[in-house]
């Protein structure tokens, strides 16, 4: 994990972002990344618009509304709206396809 993640086609992903499975369309932050950080995703430079905390997800590429999000090569939900490459992928733009997620910050209601 010290080097970039090499892909079959040779395109590189920044070592601060973890690709868990080749077919995934999200990446996991291996450390805290401040807004404005420039990262390499599939060989392209992307400037992160938001701060991304350790363990949080960013979109690997542009995602359409209603697109299935893949992590570990498996479905983890679908997008609520279009999401840009490198954008924070979380409760505001990704929903469960099973059971709604409850958070305190959403004012004690289901974040859906």
């Amino acid at each position, binding site marked *: 994990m010290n080097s970039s993640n090499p892909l079959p086609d040779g395109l590189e992903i920044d070592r601060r972002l973890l690709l868990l499975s080749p077919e995934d369309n999200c990446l996991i932050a*291996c450390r805290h990344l401040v807004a404005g950080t420039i990262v390499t995703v599939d060989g392209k430079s992307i400037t992160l618009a938001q701060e991304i905390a*350790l*363990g*949080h997800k960013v979109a690997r590429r542009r995602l359409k509304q209603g697109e299935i999000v893949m992590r570990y090569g*498996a479905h983890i939900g679908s997008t609520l709206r279009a999401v840009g490459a490198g954008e924070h992928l979380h409760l505001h733009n990704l929903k469960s*396809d099973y*059971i709604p*997620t409850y958070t305190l910050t959403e004012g004690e209601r289901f974040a859906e």
Partner: protein
Amino acid sequence: MTINPKLQPTLTGYLRSDGRKGIRNLVVVAYLVECAHHVAREITLSFRHQNVHLIGFPGCYPNGYADKVMRQLVTHPNVGAVLLISLGCESFNKQGLETLVDATGRPVHTLTIQQTGGTKSTIAQGVEWVQHAQEAIASTQRVAMQIEELVVATVCGGSDGTSGITANPAVGRAFDALVEQGAACIFEETGELVGCEFHMKRRAATPELGEEIVACIEKAAKYYTVLGHGSFAPGNADGGLTTQEEKSLGAYAKSGGSPIQGILKPGDLAPTGGLYLLDVVSDGEVRFGFPNISDNAEIVELISCGAHMTLFTTGRGSVVGSAISPVIKICANPQTYASLSEDMDVNAGRILDGEATLEEVGQEIAQLIVRVAQGEPSKSEEMGHQEFILTYKNFTPIGPACLPIRQSIPVQTI
């Protein structure tokens, strides 16, 4: 991956009458209704850090699940003697419990507060009995114990976006190593496996078991949907997890890659070595509220299935231990480890920093399991954590397809 062979032959266990072996030799003080809780706690407080643990059931109404779990706990191989504290008018079948323990040869005694003169005199009599029990069990026979006789459980709590990529798959590696050596390993929280049912089906030992696994997860999804809430806490979202199925996939990594040998329900013992799934969600209509109100309820159920110890993975940073069986804390997140290192046994977050591989952390966990089995206290155990929760549930017995292999361990008739 295999466990360091140098460590293999040196386990010794406390031999129990059913053939199982304990890695601890505790006195358990159990209150049989909340009304007896204070008296029971006061008795145990006279023996802090002296292997006297407090457990109990708070309800006054009878419950078959609670009865079955309690019967397994007071005859758990880590338990050497049992003191029951009753108020006197509660529903719990204390005579049945005492008879069961007595038949195993363990010292057992019941104090009924309404007949022993009240709080102070019951505490005094309880303290005196525990002192005698400690002396009596000091000579319990210790015999050689093999890795294959170990039962190891896993649970996750305070998960975040790192849990599923460091601590959980590292536990999976340790589980694979233990299963390879014949140990029984148990993973659970079917509500946290929603979305993984078809992956698990492919790993089932028989096609019929595969169908049972899918049905088991469907039951959990339905149950949580009626309750209107997944097994998902706000802290999970703060840590980067967005959906139930994302949390589930991370949790599922704890199970490793071995075939799934069977489904257990709370209080069922694994009949052989291998990997087992514990079904924790009540059968039938939704009753008694959330399946497990917090992590320790799950840990108690795993112990009721005979677990000698529990591997607890955490990202946000849980500090709990448990009564009866040690809890080993495996921290997924390097930032959490830095702030809570005094509570964490293993720093799996090193994987994210590139300082260790999954295999190395898996090996570290497997070696720690052996040391804790040899008597080394885990951090939560050393600090006196003895959390315990047992509440109401409703289960029907497991069907024949749930345990394709039933053999070896003489399962108690309860």
